[in-house]
């Protein structure tokens, strides 16, 4: 508990944490609203079959996830950048405990920021849809509450992946490059790879798979929500194990 308190102090006492948290929420909600505006002039009959008002209200995740991933990375990279990690390791010689405390705090922040981003985006966009006379989703509708929880968990896992990437890369710029690749480029370009590879990346790239967690209506070519969350969780565990091994063994 002492260690978690210490790591929370480290994060809350630098401005970058709050800037990242606020901009994740702001960018997430703003882009979700923007993504929904071009629907507003449509009539309900224009909407494709199987249109999902819940996932349609969370388009801002595309960018919010990147900031949340960086929030995770920034919980460790400045310590390497300044060398403060050395002092941390003198106070906490068990590097595993040190990293676990960071992970606990990052998960909590990721979950909080994820929940706020999700609920704000969902609420604002559903209000817009309703006022435009379009079908809107309500939290009480079947599957919607689960999708919203899935959305917040998705962002939490991305924050933890960011932390692991930060522990591996030890630099904020490298972490950003890796996260842009993993969160944006591969999901965008992967499906266009030829044959089996395209199919594999289109369905099972952990980020792509994880995004099924916040769908209510099943999407063709996407894994089921729970499967998606499991795939993303496994990926997060995988990079965390790698990040932990490097953090524990490498000289600083």
């Amino acid at each position: 508990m002492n260690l978690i308190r210490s790591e929370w102090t480290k994060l809350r006492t630098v401005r970058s944490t709050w800037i990242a948290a606020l901009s994740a929420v702001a960018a997430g909600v703003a882009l979700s609203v923007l993504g929904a505006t071009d629907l507003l002039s449509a009539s309900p009959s224009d909407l494709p079959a199987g249109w999902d008002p819940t996932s349609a209200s969370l388009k801002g995740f595309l960018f919010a996830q990147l900031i949340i991933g960086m929030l995770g990375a920034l919980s460790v990279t400045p310590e390497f950048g300044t060398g403060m990690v050395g002092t941390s390791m003198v106070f906490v010689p068990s590097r595993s405990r040190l990293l676990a405390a960071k992970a606990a705090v990052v998960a909590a922040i990721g979950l909080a920021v994820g929940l706020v981003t999700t609920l704000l985006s969902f609420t604002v966009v559903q209000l817009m849809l309703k006022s435009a006379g379009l079908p809107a989703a309500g939290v009480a509708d079947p599957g919607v509450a689960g999708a919203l929880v899935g959305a917040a968990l998705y962002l939490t896992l991305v924050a933890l992946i960011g932390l692991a990437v930060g522990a591996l890369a030890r630099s904020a710029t490298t972490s950003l490059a890796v996260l842009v690749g993993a969160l944006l480029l591969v999901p965008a370009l992967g499906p266009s790879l030829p044959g089996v590879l395209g199919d594999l990346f289109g369905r099972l790239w952990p980020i792509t798979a994880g995004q099924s967690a916040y769908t209510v209506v099943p999407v063709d070519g996407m894994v089921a929500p729970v499967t998606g969350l499991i795939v993303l969780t496994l990926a997060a565990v995988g990079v965390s194990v790698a990040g932990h091994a490097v953090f524990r063994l490498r000289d600083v």
Partner: protein
Amino acid sequence: MKKLESRPPEGVEVKARGLTKRYGAKLAVDDLSFTARPGVVTGFLGPNGAGKSTTMRMLFGLSRPTAGTITIGGRRLTDLEDPARSVGALLDARAVHPHRTAADHLLAFTQAAGLDRSRVGEVLDLVGLTSAAGRRAGEFSLGMQQRLGIATALLGDPGVLVLDEPLNGLDPEGIRWMRTLMRDLARQGRTILFSSHLMSELELTADDVIVVGQGRLIAETTLARFVEDNTTQAVTVRAAAPDALARALSEAGVIFAMQPDSSFLVTGTDTSTVGKIAAAEGIALDELVRVRESLEDVFLRLTHDVTEYGSHTS
């Protein structure tokens, strides 16, 4: 939350045995053995690149020795139950987040060590940074960062303090403050080990010295002994009749050299011997002075010899 007990801090030995660190083909630390005792200030001296920081990083478990051990009271840092109460470290004064305030920086480590948060104010007061508590560490001068680093090292009131170049970047007042602090802490029974690449920084502070060059131990002794053993005795002597003096010196079999001002530099002997040689020949002396190499010169000569030796054997 633990309050600090008012027990006197327990200094224990910091001991390196056969400590070796290899980076690729380069031996940064080469079979180094030494002991820093409780109750005294031990200076860890060597030119830049001699392996001082690498040695300290191995002490703190930040890098792994290729061979050998370095322990605190016989235990590795990772085996200590309460590391913050046992050892305080100043690694690099600039190793602070530039946007975090001094007080918040200290608070994070106070919590990590499970100490009462009142320690933050106490150590800030101790290092004279109370008025700067709310300022960001990035705005600090190097001297203030050194003080913040010392405050961090003292949080757990540890019995052993290991400080990497603590006098670096301090103004003369700061240097005097740090010297007094180290001496006071040692007098309380703590073990103080601090590194420096300047002999002059040690002269007024250290009781013991550990001198390293190229990762190897050159000397491990008390400062007084180190001075006595390594400063060569030399005498400058001048007479109105230099020729007669030269003859007398040469007959006495001492080593001497004529200097441009027609005085003689006599080595390997002392003033009284030279005086007697002159008196025996009835030569009146105008000048008879003992000269001593400065410690800085001794240090440079010793570490230079190691460099030479290293380049011959490699």
